[in-house]
């Protein structure tokens, strides 16, 4: 666990005090997050970052999601890891695409939905083994703006002979993908906690049939199931961070742990969103009550970057590609 965790948690709690309850989005907060240098935690100070470790960054991402603060921090921090800190007062975003040919002189591809691309400066494209940086403000980049299920701006991006920078000295695509996967898992876990905390409070306070809802066994069981699954996903996540911050951990083991954390988090997102709404009843679906800030994020993030099934499919394929010894000793260890 991050040694600065408590200070960072405190910082995010203070930041959360001025969130707009209905949208969960506050542009001024994102500016503050940028000004505080939170986006570049985990990048060394001499490389223009804020210092600290990956675990510190993940605490910030998780706590922001838990507080319901919606920002591009997952995309921006991973892009910064891939191509270096953003220019002053801007941020960069990121997309995963296994089809784009990153060896061509210019890029031509449909990239699909890219979060926050309308406001970002550069776009990091993560391919199978390479990454590229594309300047968004150029003729070869066409964007059709829309929003995702959480209400955040995304753009359908088409590249047509777009100029790009290949990044021979940047971290390899696998490492960037690992960071993105961890960051996304952190956000999902934070949001799941946030939804759980609201639900727990609600079933204690809300009285029906002459007693708090939690007195109904089916309600307390559903609450316990959420708690058990959150604990499970947190274990998966802790294991992944431990392996990724420990020098010399075997690559296959890291892959197994990070992918497992992401798959477990996505499964948690589905369960928590469903149960949180069920236990809240009608008030949970109102704009006024804050639950949707979490549940809509959970619905968006479980399939963000790549769909949940892409992660589990890769993990299953890898389990079959190795023998049982390697499966047990590395992927399952």
């Amino acid at each position, binding site marked *: 666990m991050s040694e600065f965790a408590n200070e960072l948690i405190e910082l995010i709690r203070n930041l959360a005090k001025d969130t707009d309850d209905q949208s969960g989005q506050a542009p001024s907060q994102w500016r503050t997050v940028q000004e505080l240098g939170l986006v570049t935690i985990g990048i060394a100070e001499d490389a223009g970052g804020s210092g600290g470790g990956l675990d510190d960054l993940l605490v910030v991402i998780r706590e922001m999601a838990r507080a319901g603060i919606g920002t591009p921090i997952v995309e921006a921090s991973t892009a910064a890891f891939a191509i270096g800190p953003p220019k002053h007062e801007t941020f960069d975003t990121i997309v995963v695409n296994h089809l784009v040919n990153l060896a061509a002189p210019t890029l031509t591809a449909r990239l699909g939905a890219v979060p926050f691309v309308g406001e970002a400066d550069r776009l990091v494209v993560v391919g199978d083994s390479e990454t590229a940086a594309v300047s968004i403000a150029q003729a070869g980049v066409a964007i059709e703006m829309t929003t995702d299920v959480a209400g955040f701006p995304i753009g359908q991006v088409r590249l047509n002979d777009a100029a790009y920078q290949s990044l021979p000295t940047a971290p390899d695509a696998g490492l960037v993908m690992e960071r993105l996967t961890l960051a996304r898992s952190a956000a999902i876990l934070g949001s799941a906690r946030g939804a759980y905390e609201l639900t727990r409070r609600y079933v204690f306070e809300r009285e029906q049939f002459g007693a708090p809802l939690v007195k109904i066994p089916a309600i307390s069981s559903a609450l316990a199931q959420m708690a*058990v699954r959150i604990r499970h996903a947190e274990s998966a996540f802790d294991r992944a961070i431990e392996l990724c911050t420990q020098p010399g951990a075997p690559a296959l083991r890291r892959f197994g742990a990070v992918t497992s954390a992401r798959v477990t988090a996505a499964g948690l997102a589905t369960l928590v969103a469903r149960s949180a709404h069920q236990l809240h009843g009608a008030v949970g679906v109102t704009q006024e009550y804050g639950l949707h800030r979490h549940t809509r994020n959970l619905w968006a993030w479980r399939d963000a970057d790549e769909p949940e099934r892409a992660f589990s499919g890769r993990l299953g394929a890898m389990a*079959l590609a190795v023998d049982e010894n390697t499966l047990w000793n590395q992927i399952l260890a």
Partner: protein
Amino acid sequence: MSTVAEGSERHGVEDVPEKPSLGALRRQVRELTGSWLAEGRYMPRSDCWLRSFDLDFSRELAARGLIGLTWPEEFGGGGLDARSRLVVTEELLRAGAPVAAHWIGDRQIGPTILRHGSHKLQRELLPGIIRADFVFCLGMSEPEAGSDLAAVRTVARKVDGGWVVNGRKTWTSQAHRATHAYLLARTDSTGRKHEGLSEFVVDMSAPGVEVSPIPDMSGEHHFNEVSFTNVFVPGHRLIGEAGNGWRQVIEQLSFERGGPERVLSTYPLLKDVLMHLRTTRDDRFDTELGELVARLSTLRRQCWEIAEALDEGRAPIIEAASLKYLGTAFEVDVIDFARRAGLSASYEGALAQALLASPGFSIRGGASDVLLSIVAKSEVRA
């Protein structure tokens, strides 16, 4: 992800990267199960820790010092930590080895005697468990006391020099092969039902102990009913304090829930499915398999966290209840996966064996519904 082929490989892929002492324990177990398997001395099977009984195998483990691994050296134990024991137990389960003879004594009754038994009782019983001379069965459930364990009616009445036991126990696995029974009995019925319970160790050869088989739906015989008619139990066979049995047994149950046998009961079947999918080059189930892999790797981690907590002197009661709840669901989902992946035709034996054993997974050692209520209570208190 492309990181797989890269990164610095400090450890070979053959071993779980961990402390060398743990690796040595793993290798010891693998050598033993490997050679027994090669010689055809056992068939790997699901639910081996309850159903696969072979005293010779348990004695081989004993000869290697692998039973009572965490117990003090004074009694012949290994003096190691809970993590060392976890490494041994998960390798045994992975191999589907015949471990039922020593499992209950090693996991549960030895530790109970260590926590609460008198020094005399410890010296009398622990070395025998460690040598796999003593085989324990569990006299807990009764015809009228299942999930509601505090409802036990078996009575132990104080007499000169000890106690006289009368009553019936049921669902007592391996009682027909056990040398000793752990017994939860009522020593005082004047108070509330959670008061007045006490724990004992009873010789299965004592006059008045009778065992009758209860074959289960697979046709196998592991369950029994055990009746006690005026069975004399010497005074020193009381575990801990008379009347303190409820607190002691709850502690016993909450610790024993947190082990890998709540996760790996069907691992031998999962190995069969993997082999089947590899041989048939069938990639239609990658996604589903990936989900199981994610769950299993996380459950193994949770077992590790529980062992760590025990080593740090904490009581991971909620963690163990959570693990058992999720772990037994995983065990059952493996069977369903095997079925969907088309195993029924080619591996009917292994699949059917696991399936017929599976309803017990989420019942024994605390039914899932009861476990959820334990977690719920802690969430309410939190």
